[in-house]
């Protein structure tokens, strides 16, 4: 879109304000819905109050039924108890509902109410138990409604009167009659006391009456004892025995009635109903009332606060919206005007730079983003100015450098030629060395063969010597046999001589023969001994010769090994020389590569010079100073020769390299008017430095 910044800013502002209006509308709508929610909350509060009131009503009902439970007769009591339980269940359900609301405002009160209800329930349980017992009623029943106790009393009275009549017949029985009357009085009074006890509800009074009854029992026991002692006739005895039996029955039934009367459970139940239970009920009522009150108050307050907050927020929002609208429009107008002005300033500077004029700068008025941008633009112009100047200077340097590079390429080519010659000499020397190493290896091999032969010969000699030794030993053995024979002969001769001597004259001749034989034996023994000694010496000599030969064999072997090592070393040398030859070939190749690289370098130098001239032309585009016109500040150096010294490539790798062609050592021909590099229409300086070169070109 091709809109101005001002239009864009205004559009943006309008969009933002519209968004603000939408947001305000949404806020108001939200406020209203919040208000509605508050009302809903109030309704919940109402539910709480209702439940609390219901709990209270159920509690009141419970209290009434409890009272009935205490006051009603046996049959109705069971009915009342059932009703009591059902009402209690209803109340507990309501309680549960109240708790389920989980209203935080009434938590404390609810807790209080719960405690009171628990207290009441505990008491109600006791009341129920006691009421169902109903002990007084049962005691009365025993004593009045035709129970065994009453009949026993009547019979006892009748029997006692009969006894009195019987005693009246005796003149000496007035004391006994007094005892009978006393017994009658005691029994009647005991029955009265018992009735009193049932009607009484004060435990202390009941205790007093119980004590009275005990005292009467004691008196009765004494009366009966006096009668037992006094009666004489059989009729009297019979009547007294009947009295004893009846009294025992009376004591059994009336004792039970007395116990029930003492228990007095009805009264305790009534007391509980009228005392603590009422208190607990009152507490429950109070707590539930308070809950209702709290809820009502809260609901009212919440409703009022919500409504007022809604009204205030609506007014504030409308005011804020109007203010924001006015402020937004004003600010967007001011800002867009300011930005447009600054932009125009910057664009005029950039236009000047685009046309190559680097002499202008923009005026910076303040330091905000736009000010900083103008400042940066100024820096950019300044840097461009410097770069243009540097590029011009560098172009000159590059031109000079390319000339020097050309000269260096010539030197490199010459160096490559010398290197080639040196490589050739080295190769020749290596060949000589290889020949002598080969000879060495041959000699070593021959020596090795000779040494092996000598070793095997020595071994054979050793064997021969060993055989000689064994032969000599054999001879020595044989000589031993000869010696033995000589000795035996000697002995025989001796014995013969003895015999001859003993024979006297007759043995003379025999004696001579024996003597001769003995002498012969002696001589052969001597000769054998000599041979033995000789052969021993021979064995010794042969053995020492064998030892020496056996010592000779390892020496010869060692020699052979050494010679083999020499041979191996020669082989390694030979390999080394081969490698050296290969390295020399590589060197030769590298030398050739160097030569061609030098050639390329010269070509590159020429190209470089050309490029430098182009660069200078390009830089001339920028106008750097206001004082001078549009003239390039850079002078071109002379052009560089593209003639390269050629280096002949050797045909064989390890052959002497021919001398490379003589490098162009004379004055370098320069590209003058004919040079292609000058084809860009650059003004060439054809002054003194290149005049000689030009002449040379002419001669060609």
């Amino acid at each position, binding site marked *: 879109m091709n809109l101005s910044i001002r239009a864009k800013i205004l559009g943006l502002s309008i969009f933002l304000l519209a968004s603000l209006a939408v947001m305000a509308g949404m806020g108001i709508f939200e406020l209203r819905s919040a208000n509605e929610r508050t009302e809903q909350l109030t309704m919940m509060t109402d539910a709480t109050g209702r439940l609390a009131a219901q709990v209270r009503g159920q509690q009141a009902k419970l209290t009434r039924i409890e009272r009935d439970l205490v006051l009603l007769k046996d049959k109705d009591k069971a009915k009342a108890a059932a009703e009591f339980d059902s009402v209690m269940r209803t109340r507990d359900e309501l309680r549960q509902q109240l708790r389920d609301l989980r209203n935080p405002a009434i938590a404390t009160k609810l807790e209080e109410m719960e405690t009171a209800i628990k207290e009441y329930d505990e008491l109600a349980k006791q009341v129920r138990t006691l009421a169902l017992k109903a002990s007084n009623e049962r005691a009365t029943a025993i004593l009045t409604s035709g129970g065994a106790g009453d009949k026993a009393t009547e019979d006892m009275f009748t029997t006692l009167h009969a006894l009195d009549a019987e005693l009246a017949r005796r003149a000496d029985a007035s004391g006994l009659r007094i005892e009978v009357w006393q017994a009658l009085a005691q029994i009647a009074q005991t029955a009265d006391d018992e009735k009193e006890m049932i009607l009484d509800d004060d435990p202390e009074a009941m205790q007093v009456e119980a004590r009275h009854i005990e005292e009467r029992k004691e008196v009765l026991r004494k009366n009966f004892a006096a009668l037992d002692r006094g009666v004489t006739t059989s009729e009297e005895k019979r009547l007294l025995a009947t009295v004893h039996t009846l009294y025992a029955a009376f004591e059994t039934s009336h004792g039970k009635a007395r116990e029930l009367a003492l228990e007095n459970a009805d009264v305790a139940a009534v007391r509980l109903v009228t005392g603590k239970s009422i208190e607990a009920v009152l507490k429950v009522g109070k707590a539930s009332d308070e809950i209702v009150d709290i809820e009502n108050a809260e609901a009212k307050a919440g409703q009022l606060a919500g409504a007022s907050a809604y009204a205030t927020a609506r007014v504030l929002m409308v005011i804020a919206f109007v203010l924001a609208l006015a402020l937004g429009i004003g600010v967007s107008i001011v800002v867009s005007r300011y930005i447009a002005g600054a932009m125009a300033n910057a664009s005029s500077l950039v236009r000047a730079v685009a046309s190559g004029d680097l002499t202008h700068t923009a005026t910076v008025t303040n330091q905000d983003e736009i000010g900083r941008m103008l400042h940066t633009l100024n820096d950019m112009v300044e840097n461009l100015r410097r770069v243009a100047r540097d590029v011009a200077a560098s172009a000159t340097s590059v031109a000079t450098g390319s000339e020097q590079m050309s000269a260096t390429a010539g030197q490199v080519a010459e160096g490559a030629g010398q290197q080639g010659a040196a490589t050739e000499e080295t190769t020749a020397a290596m060949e000589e060395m290889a020949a002598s190493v080969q000879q060495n290896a041959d000699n070593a091999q021959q020596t090795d063969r000779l040494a092996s032969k000598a070793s095997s010969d020595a071994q054979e000699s050793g064997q021969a010597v060993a055989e000689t030794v064994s032969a000599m030993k054999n001879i020595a053995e044989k000589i031993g046999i000869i010696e033995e024979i000589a000795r*035996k002969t000697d002995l025989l001769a*001796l*014995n013969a001589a*003895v*015999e001859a*001597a*003993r024979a006297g004259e007759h043995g003379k001749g025999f*004696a001579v023969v024996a*003597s001769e034989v003995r002498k012969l034996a002696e001589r052969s023994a001597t000769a054998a001994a000599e041979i033995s000694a000789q052969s021993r010496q021979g064995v010794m000599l042969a053995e020492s010769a064998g030892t020496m030969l056996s010592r000779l064999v390892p020496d010869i072997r060692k020699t052979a090994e050494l010679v083999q090592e020499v041979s191996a070393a020669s082989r390694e040398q030979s390999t080394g020389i081969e490698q050296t030859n290969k390295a020399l070939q590589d060197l030769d190749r590298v030398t050739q590569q160097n030569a061609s690289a030098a050639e390329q370098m010269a070509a590159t130098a020429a190209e470089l010079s050309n490029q430098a001239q182009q660069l200078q032309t390009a830089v001339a585009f920028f106008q750097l100073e206001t004082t001078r016109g549009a003239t390039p500040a850079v002078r071109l150096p002379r052009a560089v020769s593209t003639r390269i010294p050629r280096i002949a490539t050797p045909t064989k790798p390890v052959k002497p390299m021919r001398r490379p062609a003589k490098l162009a050592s004379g004055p370098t021909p320069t590209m003058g008017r004919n040079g292609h590099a000058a084809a860009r229409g650059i003004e060439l300086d054809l002054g003194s430095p290149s005049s000689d070169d030009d002449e040379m070109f002419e001669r060609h």
Partner: protein
Amino acid sequence: MTTMTTTLTSYITFKLGDELFAIDVARVREVLDLTEITRVPTSPPYMRGVVNVRGSAIPVVDLRYKFGLPPTPDTVNTRIVVLELELDGEVAVVGGLADSVHEVLELERSQIREPPRIAMRWRADMIEGLGKKGEQFIIVLDIARVFATDGSLLAEPAEAAAS
């Protein structure tokens, strides 16, 4: 020739140590190589034992012991000289162990001189005389006496000096 014959006596010569001894051949029955000598218990120390010569047992006396020489191990040259001796009127056959037995030698009686009374190593009554063969002295023994004597043959003074 006959006179020569009458004056010549045959002797058998043997060696004990370095000394050369001679015994009248008439006393010698034969010379034997050293064979196995069976030791006889409770015999005197100079008795080496008995040897079996063609079925008869002959006692063997170690002459080195008899002549008071130190004992040496037997060699191949050690031999037994079998002697016939008259002892107490009976002929006894006894073997004498000698280091070596050499030869039968004829000596003239005149050549045998009386042994010197003094400075002799052995008792003089055992020795008939001193003969000579070349430069070597030969001690001619009265072998019957030698065997008749039970003890050592060393001279008394030497014995005394030794003790």
